[in-house]
């Protein structure tokens, strides 16, 4: 199998490593703006220890904590390789089904040594919703943050570069994983696919990182110059800051990752991607002159931040032009719900 590094014009540098323990993590994550790797951060987890024993032991450990409900699973075509992506006609090259975890694991086990084994991937499974006691025995304390905690389980897989709005701490529990990271501003050099028809909810880079077609995607060379790679083993973790693009490869026959997503801004604020969708709905297809005016209004009201330029309105009468609190955010939300449901 080709290595990502060999396909690049020059070797991709590694993400910086930091020697910190669980106790120091909370403080370190405050104001963290660039990626870093922590070796062995979760090496003490029972799940990690089970995985070091064998893939079967890790599966048995997970089965011992599963809730009795169907799990959503993505299954690739036999022999189609490890990349879960669009097919030639922009459909998906995998199908999605639901089955008990024991059945899915039996399938992984039965295919383990076959050359044409399909990629099998359970992505972004809510830890507390689908397992009992797994969180209690295997989690990272993130202080006052209230993260979404998910588990990712599967065979060898490759997920095209995509990004997420929340900050992300990804802990490799079983198997090896490679994260190839690109800074947030690289979106144009990554040749993003559709935003409303995606393999897993987020737009992905159409470039095959392992075999880039520089003829079709010349600017990807630029992106590669900014890339960093994190090679994770069992117990290692990588911090992926908000909006950083990440291409993720699971490199062993059986792999498990647990990740935490959180936002550092108040929970009552909206989701920026909702605003983008709404702007596409309301503004993008306006005539150019009108669009230009809206760009100026957005600059004035949104991108220059709250308060400046509002001195002509008496304090206390600025409404949502003042910095938001939960109550004002709730009013905007209710008004939007009202107007959108008309």
């Amino acid at each position: 199998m080709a290595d990502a590094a060999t396909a690049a014009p020059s070797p991709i540098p590694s993400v910086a490593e930091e020697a910190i323990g669980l106790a120091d993590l909370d403080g370190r994550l405050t104001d963290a703006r660039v990626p870093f790797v922590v070796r062995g951060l979760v090496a003490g987890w029972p799940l990690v220890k089970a995985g070091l024993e064998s893939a079967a032991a890790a599966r048995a450990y997970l089965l011992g904590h599963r809730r009795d409900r169907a799990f959503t699973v993505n299954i690739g075509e036999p022999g189609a390789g490890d990349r879960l992506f669009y097919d030639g006609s922009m459909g998906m090259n995998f199908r999605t089904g639901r089955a008990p975890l024991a059945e899915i694991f039996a399938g992984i086990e039965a295919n383990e040594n076959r050359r044409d084994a399909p990629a099998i991937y359970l992505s972004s499974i809510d830890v507390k919703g689908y397992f009992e006691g797994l969180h209690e025995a295997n989690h990272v304390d993130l202080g006052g943050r209230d993260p979404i905690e998910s588990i990712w389980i599967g065979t060898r897989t490759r997920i095209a570069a995509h990004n997420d709005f929340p900050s992300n701490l990804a802990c490799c529990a079983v198997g090896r994983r490679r994260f190839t990271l690109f800074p947030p501003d690289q979106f144009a050099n990554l040749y993003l696919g559709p935003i409303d028809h995606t393999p897993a909810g987020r737009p992905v880079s159409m470039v095959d990182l392992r075999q880039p077609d520089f003829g079709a995607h010349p600017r990807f060379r630029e992106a590669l110059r900014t890339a960093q790679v994190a090679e994770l083993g069992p117990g290692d973790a990588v911090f992926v800051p908000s909006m950083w693009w990440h291409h993720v490869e699971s490199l062993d026959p059986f792999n498990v990752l647990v990740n935490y997503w959180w936002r550092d801004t108040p929970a009552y604020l909206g989701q920026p991607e909702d605003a983008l969708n709404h702007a596409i709905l309301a503004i993008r297809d306006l005539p150019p002159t009108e669009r230009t005016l809206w760009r100026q209004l957005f600059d004035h009201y949104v991108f220059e931040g709250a308060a400046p330029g509002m001195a002509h309105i008496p304090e206390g009468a600025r409404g949502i032009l003042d910095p938001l609190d939960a109550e004002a955010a709730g009013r905007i939300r209710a008004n939007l719900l009202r107007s959108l449901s008309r």
Partner: protein
Amino acid sequence: MSNHVILDSEAHRDLRIRAGATAALGDGVMACLTVPTEFRRVQNEFPILFRRDMERGAFSSLALFGFENGENLFVEADSWDARYRPLALSIPPFLIGQAADGQAQVHLDMGHPRIASEGDEGIRAFDEHGRPTPYLEAVFAGLDELDQGYRASGEFFAALERYDLLEPFSLDIDLRDGSTHRLVGYHLIDEGRLQALEPGAVADLHEAGHLMPAFMAIASLSNISALVARKNRRLGSG
């Protein structure tokens, strides 16, 4: 501002509480807090809706009495026009406070309009020997149920979220005077998803005691049309 003191059978020996249901006594509210252990009684009369606190992200349950702030369609001519009066309305001016050791204790809101002044009619809280009257005993029981029910409701909502059963809900209500009200920002339980739950999930909800309140909350929604009819009656006579 509120003036909360610890209830004391000596200091409050002569305390009397004004009964009745009027806006002046604090009943002019469009909804009040309810808890899953109370749903069975509430669902008979009132729609039960859920609301997410945007600051903390936590859900709570509300019994709905009207369609706009301050509107309680069950307050009729100084009396409560329903077979059940939710706990959250029947306990004021008493409330649960916290002692220094974190234990719950009964507090009294000295600024509450239900506290009878000289010359007002009122129900005694203590008898002449300083013993709680049956009225106050009932208030204690209600406070305790609401307090415990509220603490336990986090588990209820966690279970509903685990199985993706909470659904955002908005409702347009067309009234006979031609006006339209729109209720937004609430959640309810998705009946289709609850009915389609797999056996393991049903067992999980059932074992934890969440299944019955979930169905009670769904049943309560049939009261929405009765509430609209109430509103229309009021418009007709007003």
